[in-house]
């Protein structure tokens, strides 16, 4: 049965400079029963989230018995900027660490699930790699390397468009100059249309290490990809294909929202996402670190997920 919830505003961190909203059930369970969920910023959108998604997610999770904190990283939303000159990623990691420190000191919080969209997902994944207090990750459209399957789908889509096909046949499409550059052995960046370059060996190895570290520690993953971030990914299994050496197994629930954009603008997509996250969190076995599975997962069993086929949204 859904609980009523209460929300309180907080100032967190050693300088009381990070603004957060804590939501919890009116009859709040102890931390031992449920981990706290921390919802991170997406880009520079403040803690309510794109389309107020973080508010909806926090309130439903709280009603399901999870204490949930939405807070602003330093310099975002209402939180003060840091004065220590840390680079953005290091600052985000320090902020999360400071918030966890505040929560551990005031509430005895020792287990958390980090949740985020886009950069929030990336921050969550990266922080989890080095902090054993993280027992779960909700990653919405995280940054992952492109794969052969990505390029096949990317060009397959575009070759279906008459203008693109003509450009390819005439040799005018940017793809040709990029391929010439790569075949000549020059490092070259992918065309602008491919978006940020997550393809470098260094970045790929870094991301693989980040995910592997959490998997090996027994972190539970919910990864949701949308059809609205095709500069980075464009099919459900891309996460698995990008890191073929990582055995996610039953720790990973993988979902694809083919009818949603990157920020879950349609209300029905947000409602479905919130239900998914609550269901996943309510059923997940959040525990301390345990040994990785021994069995090699089959391609079908590489991750749990829905049978929802990847589908593209209607062309606007």
């Amino acid at each position: 049965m859904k609980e009523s919830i209460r929300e309180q505003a907080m100032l967190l961190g050693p300088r009381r400079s990070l603004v957060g909203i804590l939501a919890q059930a009116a009859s709040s369970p102890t931390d031992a029963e449920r981990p706290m969920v921390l919802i991170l910023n997406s880009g520079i959108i403040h803690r309510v989230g794109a389309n107020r998604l973080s508010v909806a997610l926090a309130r439903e999770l709280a009603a399901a018995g999870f204490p949930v904190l939405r807070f602003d990283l330093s310099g975002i939303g209402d939180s003060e900027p840091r004065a220590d000159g840390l680079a953005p990623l290091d600052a985000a990691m320090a902020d999360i660490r400071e918030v966890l420190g505040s929560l551990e000191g005031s509430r005895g919080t020792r287990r958390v699930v980090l949740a985020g969209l886009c950069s929030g997902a990336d921050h969550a994944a990266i922080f989890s790699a080095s902090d054993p207090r993280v027992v779960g990750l909700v990653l919405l459209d995280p940054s992952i390397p492109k794969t052969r399957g990505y390029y096949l789908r990317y060009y397959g889509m575009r070759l279906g468009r008459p203008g693109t096909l003509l450009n390819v046949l005439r040799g005018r499409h940017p793809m040709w100059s990029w391929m010439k550059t790569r075949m000549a052995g020059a490092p070259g960046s992918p065309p602008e249309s491919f978006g940020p370059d997550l393809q470098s060996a260094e970045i790929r190895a870094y991301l693989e290490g980040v995910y592997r570290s959490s998997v090996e520690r027994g972190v539970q993953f919910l990864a949701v990809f949308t059809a609205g971030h095709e500069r980075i990914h464009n099919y459900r299994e891309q996460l698995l294909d990008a890191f073929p050496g990582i055995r996610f197994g039953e720790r990973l629930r993988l979902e694809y929202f083919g009818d949603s954009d990157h920020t879950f603008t349609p209300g029905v997509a947000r409602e479905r996402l919130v239900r998914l996250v609550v269901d996943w969190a309510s059923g997940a076995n959040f525990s301390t670190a345990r040994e990785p599975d021994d069995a090699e997962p089959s391609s079908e069993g590489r991750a749990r997920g829905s049978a929802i086929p990847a589908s593209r949204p209607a062309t606007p």
Partner: protein
Amino acid sequence: MNPFYFGSGQHRLFGIYMPPLARRAGARSIVLCHPWGQEYLRAHRSMRQLASTLAAAGHHVLRFDYFGTGDSAGEMAQASLGDWEGDIAFAIEELRDTTAAAKVALVGLRLGAALAARVAARRPEDVDALVLWDPVVGGAEYLGELVSGASYAMDRVPRPADAGGGYDVLGFPLTGTLMKEIAAIDLCELVPAIPARMLVLASQALPSHQRLEAALARRPAGEGALERIECEPAWLEKEDLGAGAIPVAILQRIAGWFG
């Protein structure tokens, strides 16, 4: 900076109070009134920066979220403009309780400006200064802007009648109730008679500005003429940031007007 909840029961509102960072004579108590929907998200950092600028100049500032928006309780689909005008009144009382000010100033952006003007017109005993920053002048014109800004199928979705009708516009419910109330907005009817001292700023031109200037010209001593300051709109997304630009010139003008 003090984030807190005020109000009671199911109508708790979130606010952030910023005390003055400098001592000065004539410190004002100022309530900031946000715009609607995606404009609220995109302009959030500009409103935050405005609050900081005003606090640095020695004023008390309260920002708050209307019922069903931001961190406040409730869902937008259950809200009305009348509710939000009532929330501005709550915020005024909350700030006056904190600062013991006899009267407050309201600063509103876009729809927040139209709501602030309505409250200032109804409560002259409480509001003695009003800043209308790129105000919604005519409701029909504003609804047209919202519709044209949501030209993709995913950005403008009809809502079922049993959910209040209207549309989900860029992720936010523009219910039949809100659409009807917004359509009735006519700032030109209000501004001539609002006794509060007034500053009206526009960073973006609207067809309705000619009519607004004529209405402002009917104010006593012509005070409150429309000032145009060319800068990027705080409520429209800049590149892919999910946020608008911070219009420094506008913020400086507002701070300078308060003295």
